């Protein structure tokens, strides 16, 4: 047996012991993501976060919209919902409110959450709906072939910006902060440990929590703009990332291949929508009101 085959078999054996495997629907592998795509890396971090969180996984539900990242729900071995384009957040809102014991996570892409779904993001954050939103931001519409997104920086070529993008992009952490999110952080898929840690921390918090994950799309975004492959993008993340915890989110907008500010920007407490409703009606109706979704006096 050759040495390389030995090594190969050893790696197969290792992969069978992979600690994230129990979190995946193994009968759905292989996944659809391209070589060099960062979504899988983010999912790996999420699985580690779930593993470290100590949460009862029967009570964790994942909701995705449409797009490459929107396929995440289908690969995770949780109660999982692949909804319509842009509407993962309102679906998650209904799921959480009808069954408050669930820990509900929305996992979707930048186009899904901030173009077609933008309005829902603003309002769920404003209401402090008790959900965690993870946005994998690859600056493009991958599933449909590389069209301009509300996150695309000024400059790069997209199929619907064939001479380079001239629209101003969103600064996602700033939006989340301004709308009232209780937790806002950004990491890249280079920062696997920090990302897994942030996901675990956010899973343990209440209220509307938001994590932006910068991720390469080598097939469409990088290749079209001659930025190399997935590894080249990760090198860029490594070289140009600056950790600035607690920095004003106004300052964390992303330019084309420019500096990337990462870190935890917001961590605060606000009553969730259900807590506000229960408190308000308890005050208004007194003992005639039975708090909703509360077990043994605990939320």
């Amino acid at each position: 047996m050759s040495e390389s085959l030995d090594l190969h078999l050893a790696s197969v054996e290792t992969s069978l012991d992979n600690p994230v495997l129990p979190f995946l629907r193994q009968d759905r592998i292989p996944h659809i993501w391209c070589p060099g795509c960062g979504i899988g890396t983010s999912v790996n971090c999420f699985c580690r976060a779930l593993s470290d969180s100590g949460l009862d996984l029967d009570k964790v539900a994942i909701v995705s919209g449409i797009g490459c990242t929107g396929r995440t729900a289908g690969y995770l071995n949780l109660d999982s919902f692949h909804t319509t384009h842009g509407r993962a957040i309102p679906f998650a809102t209904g799921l959480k409110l009808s069954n408050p014991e669930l820990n509900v996570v929305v996992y979707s892409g930048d186009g899904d959450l901030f173009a077609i779904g933008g309005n829902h993001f603003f309002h769920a954050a404003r209401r402090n709906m008790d959900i965690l939103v993870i946005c994998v931001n690859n600056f493009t519409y991958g599933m449909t072939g590389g069209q301009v997104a509300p996150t695309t920086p000024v400059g790069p070529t997209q199929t619907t910006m064939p001479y380079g993008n001239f629209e101003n992009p969103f600064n996602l952490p700033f939006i989340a902060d301004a709308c009232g999110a209780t937790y806002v952080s950004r990491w890249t898929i280079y920062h696997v440990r920090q990302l897994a840690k942030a996901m675990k921390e956010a899973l343990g918090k209440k209220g509307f929590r938001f994590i932006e994950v910068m991720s390469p799309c080598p097939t469409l975004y990088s290749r079209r703009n001659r930025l190399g492959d997935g590894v080249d993008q990760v090198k860029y993340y490594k070289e140009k990332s600056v950790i600035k915890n607690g920095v004003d989110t106004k300052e964390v907008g992303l330019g084309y291949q420019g500096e990337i500010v990462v870190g935890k920007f917001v961590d605060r407490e606000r009553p969730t929508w259900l807590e506000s409703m229960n408190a308000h009606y308890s005050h208004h109706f007194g003992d005639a009101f039975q708090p909703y979704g509360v077990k043994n006096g605990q939320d």
Partner: protein
Amino acid sequence: MKADPKGVLTGVHFMDGDHAACEGALAAGCRFVAGYPITPSTEIVERFAARIPKVGGVFIQMEDELAASIAIQGGVWGGQKVMSVTSGPGLSLMMEHLGYAAMTETPSVWVDVQRGGPSTGLPTLPAQADMMQIKWGSHGDYEIIALSPNSPQECFDLMIKAFNLSEEYRCPVFLMMDEVVGHMTERVNIPSADQIDVTERKWTKKKPGEYKAFATTPEDLVPEMVKAGDGYRIHVTGLTHDERGYPAMDVPNQAKLIPRLLNKIRNNVHKLVDVRMDGCEDADVIVMSFGITSRVATAAIDAARAKGLKVGHLRLIICWPFPVALIQQLARTAKAFVVPELNMGQMVLEVRKALADVDRKVKVISVPHPGGTVHDPETILEQILEAAR
């Protein structure tokens, strides 16, 4: 099972159709509503918002109808019975999620208090012009059930029936009201909870591991259900899917799934006939109507009978699925159908379609109306006289 007394406002009331519809939903066990204000349906959600804190449940006003119509579906998979309520442009915005509910077999009740259209149209005035939109408005092939009340009492009664049918067939069920029925105030008798039958969700008795979320048998095309949080680790998608709920985007899976979604309704069309017939057995002319138009038609029919004509009245309670076999049976003896409706001729197309397979020549007269008010009974009478000629 019987209704939960907490949601049942037993007694004799004087209330409008919108409020009666809300009470019907509460009696049926609806405990989660996501809505968005739009005339003339808003009173339904206003009442729900006021009543639900005392009953136990949640109302949330969403940011638009797109959000409302998908939030209710999250509510279903969290375990609740749900409803969303809209009118006019709001219904147009809900069309994508109607398809999602059909594809994912999410039991849900959709209330459309019809107003004049298209577009913003006549926000405060009646129409019955959404009958084809609910049937065909979402892309792809799907089936729904639709009921049409003509009084506040029926808004209450048929709302309960709508909830029960949505659980039985796991499909979207529409309560097709209109502005007049919604805002008309009449006596509404709400019985005690032990007199109200409600259909429980089709919960599975299988254990995690042996349960497949979308598996059915040839005898029963409606899958058993679970909710998130019960340990089944289900996957639900609007993509074409297999019995496990996993995406399976190929011809064999499409060829298996889509006919099943249609046939779970179509195979039961005979069970889903709900009509009121008055004098149809020996009628020369049959007036087919639904909703508020049935009350105007009654005046025209009485006037025609006073002239000695044999006129029957066929009122649709369930409009979709359309009672094709019944129309064909009536066409063995009737000479003509007269179809008044507050639109430019929608359900009359179904009568014509049903009669295409009938050998006898049977006249079909449409009595259209662009909406904004109800028909003048004289207009319907004229067409009955024309039909009898």
